[in-house]
């Protein structure tokens, strides 16, 4: 049974989304997996708007409050050993209660450390990333921040990226 993409959305927002014009990537990007999973280094990327308290500031929700059509396009770095208690949340469009109790619901650090320990993946990269998913205009993502993160991933010799938009 196919997943209903609009199940959780109010009808008005679902209707808005379904009428949006979207440009399709052609051809669809494709990098074959170059190694077996148990030799791959993985990085995790989410759009849950999380950050590490004391390391970097939250996403700019004050500006979003002043400019409701704007969302902070920057990203935050989440080291692999970040304890749950240091995770901060700054996404204004979701209930952050559960990710503040268990970050694995959006960025599965513990689950991937377990996979690494079990030898099911090669390794979990030192560094992971959070964006904040409320974006009307993704130009800065496309032209600045995604290339920056891609370069950081390359420097850490990441083979595969596990993406969890929220």
């Amino acid at each position, binding site marked *: *049974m*196919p*997943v*209903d*993409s*609009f*199940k*959780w959305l109010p009808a008005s927002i679902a209707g808005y989304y*379904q009428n949006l014009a*979207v440009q*399709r*990537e052609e*051809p*669809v*990007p*494709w*990098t*074959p*997996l*170059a190694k*077996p*999973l148990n030799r791959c280094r993985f990085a995790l990327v989410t759009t*849950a708007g999380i950050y590490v308290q004391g390391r970097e500031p939250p996403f700019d929700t004050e500006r*979003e*409050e002043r*400019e*409701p*059509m704007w969302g902070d396009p920057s990203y935050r770095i989440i080291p692999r050993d970040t304890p749950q208690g240091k995770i901060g949340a700054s*996404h*204004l*469009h*979701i*209930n*952050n209660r*559960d*990710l503040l*109790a*268990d970050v*694995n*619901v*959006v960025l*599965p650090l*513990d*689950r*991937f450390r*377990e*996979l690494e320990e079990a030898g*099911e993946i090669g390794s979990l990269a030192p560094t992971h990333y959070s964006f904040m998913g*409320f974006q009307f205009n993704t130009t800065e993502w496309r032209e600045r921040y995604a290339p920056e993160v891609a370069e950081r*991933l*390359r420097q850490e010799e*990441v*083979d*595969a*990226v*596990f*993406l*969890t*938009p*929220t």
Partner: protein
Amino acid sequence: MSTVLVSMMPYWAEKIGVPRTVAVEFPFGHILGHAGDAQEQAAVIGDALRVLAEAREPGTVAHLPYTWPDFERWKREWQPGKPSPIIRMLREQAEARRREEASAN
């Protein structure tokens, strides 16, 4: 680098053209499952890694069978406690339109 995306909105993956997607009918903010449910999270992750390893066609979308109980509660529960700025703005605009129409009549 190869990627796999876990999404509750495969509609967008199909529209935009994403290399590999696993779709799961979980509410926003809970893409990998319930807080504290490591087994559920591991199941979704395991399925996603299988698609990463086995997919051969760009644009592959695999729909996972997991269900999320108590829809009536969770269709509100995933939402923020305070409406977001854009929602507040849209509601204010709708209210202003209603007032304008009422006074025109």
